[in-house]
């Protein structure tokens, strides 16, 4: 490794105790933070800002060194390269649970410092922790810190670099007794078990009846704010780029630049990259709202509410977190699947997360519906619900196969509700804006240049006759595939192809190959089928490589690609087919077909495949596990 192991400090602690917030403070980085267990699913190393020779490693949170899920395994693997010092971050609000891991850490015989985080919240709740007494019990320095408020950090690092000691070994059988004694001597609580703000708010947010309507309201408001506010700001940028582009073209012509060069600048830069850039505000608004949901702790509550429904379709409450994160970007969503304990549910979550409309797809839909449906908000909103419906349907179908069936029930920490910090939200936005601009400058620009080249050159060199170009012949060769879907023209075909690199590329390609992309679609429903195809087709290259990484198998990866392609094709075919029926045979025939197909599908899905309550994994009529468990 590029860092010097002899000077490495590892941050270890329970999930959601603030390790990454501390890491960002120590290294000056802007890694993603959030208020729930499992935001960090990979280890990260950076240099300490005040002493560049010291390396800090941030690890995923874990309850125990005995690994269960993929993110927890990273912690035990990482400890194989022994760090110089361990900073054990513990949540001061939950000492008795957090110290169990501390006890396990004593068996490693590595010098350690304990950082008791959330000192600000402890003060508010009237809890006093005697660090000297705690330090005597474990024989290591104990420092009170607040990573969110940047308090006690220098003292912690001073102790970590100079005073860290190997802790007293605690035998595993004595953990609980040992902790009870330690807490008796070190913690003074004013009042125990009072109902705090989180409890009161959860009475409403997690209410059996109110919870789901509130959740739906949250989704709807995220969507409408993104499209209204983001759309408004985006239009301003689009106007600016248009004016700048016209000005550039004019001055280039006046200076007598070559025709192909003008084509490159206007075609690839203005029409291609420029069209994508105008969606920056929309994507930022979306990520701002998602960051607020993430940092407040609401996402874990949504997972709690939806777990029952998710289980019915072979998923898990934690899959909802993946789906929710995927509404921003599927890469993050796919990586969060790591926290799911059951391999089969994890696989299914990786398969289905890319079906969610990510920021880039949302931009494509907003653009197309603006062009074709006059910006009708119902069109884009319906795609959100279509994606949820297809995820549920996919889960219900796929869980019939052994490859996906079965898994563990949900056991998940519900975080304290917290006010999102300005620093956290701002860092997230900065990160996303930089990502987006880098993407526009690299992959989007490259696709633009390639598309420009292919549509400006043919076998006879540079040409202005489009039917002689490479792009035209390429598109014409594959367009037959899309005829049943209602968009069998070469322009749409190449746009779909470019969507594999980045979904934003669909906008730029359509914009570059057609003066008025609305004319490419013979009817509203064929345009809708096109959007559905973009929604469900395999995700962009970045998400594909994340999926490959999580699935850890080329075979699984190919199955996923095939599944997503087939789903995209079938959904688009259905939409186009229903539209065709409606147009030619009227609404009565259409409803009749929908009802008949609906009945067939529900029979297939609801057909009771006997599953026993106890083992959940078998699906066979006579299950040995069930027998064994009921006789106990």
């Amino acid at each position, binding site marked *: 490794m590029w860092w010097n192991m002899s000077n490495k400090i590892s941050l270890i602690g329970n999930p959601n105790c603030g390790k990454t917030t501390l890491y960002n403070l120590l290294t000056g980085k802007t890694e993603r933070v959030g208020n729930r267990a499992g935001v960090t699913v990979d280890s990260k190393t950076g240099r300490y800002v005040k002493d560049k020779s010291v390396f800090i490693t941030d690890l995923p949170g874990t*309850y*125990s060194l*005995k690994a*269960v899920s993929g993110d927890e395994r990273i912690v035990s693997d990482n400890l194989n390269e022994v760090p110089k010092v361990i900073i054990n971050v513990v949540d001061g*609000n*939950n000492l*008795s*649970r957090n110290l*169990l*891991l501390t006890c396990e850490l004593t068996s490693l015989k590595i010098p350690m410092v304990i950082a008791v985080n959330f000192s600000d919240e402890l003060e508010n709740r009237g809890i006093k922790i005697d660090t000297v007494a705690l330090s005597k019990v474990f024989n290591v320095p104990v420092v009170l810190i607040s990573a969110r408020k940047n308090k006690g950090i220098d003292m912690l690092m001073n102790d970590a670099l100079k005073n860290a000691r190997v802790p007293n070994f605690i035998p595993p059988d004595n953990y*609980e007794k040992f902790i009870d004694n330690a807490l008796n001597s070190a913690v003074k609580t004013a009042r*125990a*078990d009072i109902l705090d703000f*989180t*409890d009161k708010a*959860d*009475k409403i947010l*997690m*209410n*059996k*009846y109110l*919870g*789901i309507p509130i959740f739906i309201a949250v989704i709807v408001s995220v969507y409408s704010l993104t499209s209204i506010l983001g759309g408004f700001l985006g239009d301003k940028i689009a106007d600016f780029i248009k004016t700048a582009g016209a000005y550039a073209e004019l001055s280039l012509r006046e200076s007598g630049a070559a025709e192909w060069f003008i084509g490159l600048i206007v075609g690839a830069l203005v029409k291609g990259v420029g069209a994508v850039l105008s969606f920056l505000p929309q994507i930022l608004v979306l990520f701002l709202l998602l960051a607020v949901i993430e940092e407040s702790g609401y996402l*874990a509550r949504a*997972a*709690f*509410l939806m*777990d*029952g*429904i998710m*289980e*019915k379709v072979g998923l898990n*409450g934690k899959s909802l977190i993946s789906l929710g994160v995927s509404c921003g970007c599927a890469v993050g969503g796919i990586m969060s699947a790591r926290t799911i304990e059951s391999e089969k549910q994890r696989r299914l979550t990786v398969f289905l997360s890319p079906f969610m409309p990510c920021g880039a797809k949302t931009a494509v839909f907003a653009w197309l519906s603006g062009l074709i449906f006059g910006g009708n908000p119902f069109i884009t909103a319906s795609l959100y619900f279509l994606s949820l419906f297809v995820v549920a349907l996919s889960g219900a179908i796929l869980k019939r196969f052994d490859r996906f069936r079965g898994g*563990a*029930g*949900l*056991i*998940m*920490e*519900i*975080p*304290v509700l917290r006010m999102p910090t300005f620093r956290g939200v701002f860092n997230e936005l900065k990160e996303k804006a930089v990502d987006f601009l880098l993407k526009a400058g690299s992959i989007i620009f490259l696709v633009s240049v390639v598309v420009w080249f292919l549509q400006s050159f043919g076998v006879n060199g540079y040409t202005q006759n489009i039917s002689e170009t490479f792009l035209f012949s390429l598109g014409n060769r594959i367009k037959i595939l899309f005829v049943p879907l209602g968009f069998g023209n070469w322009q749409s075909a190449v746009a779909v192809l470019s969507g594999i690199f980045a979904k934003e590329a669909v906008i730029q390609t359509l914009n570059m190959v057609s003066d008025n992309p609305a004319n490419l679609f013979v009817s509203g429903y064929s345009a809708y089928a096109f959007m559905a195809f973009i929604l469900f087709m395999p995700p962009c290259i970045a998400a594909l490589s994340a999926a490959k990484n999580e699935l850890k198998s080329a075979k699984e990866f190919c199955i996923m690609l095939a599944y997503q392609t087939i789903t995209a094709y079938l959904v688009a075919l259905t939409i186009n087919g229903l539209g065709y029926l409606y147009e030619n045979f009227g609404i009565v025939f259409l409803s009749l077909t929908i009802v008949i197909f609906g009945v067939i599908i529900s029979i297939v899905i609801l057909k009771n495949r006997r599953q026993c*309550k*106890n083992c*959940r994994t078998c699906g066979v009529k006579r299950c040995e596990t069930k027998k064994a468990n009921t006789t*106990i």
Partner: protein
Amino acid sequence: MVLSEVKIGERVKIIVQKNENAVKQRLRTMGIRSGTIVTVMNTAPFETPIEIKIGNFRLAICKAEADKIVVEYV
């Protein structure tokens, strides 16, 4: 009585867990074991999962697992 039968707002003490070892071990690393006092906070739609509070720690646990945790009133 088992944990899944406890009404919202009631406090109970865990007597014994009949879950498989992996689940039992996982709950133990979260500080849940025989003798732990828990409060049931919320139940999700479809009766699963339920939210319990242990000290200041809130945990969602699905019904199938809560069915196998024997508790008594304190």
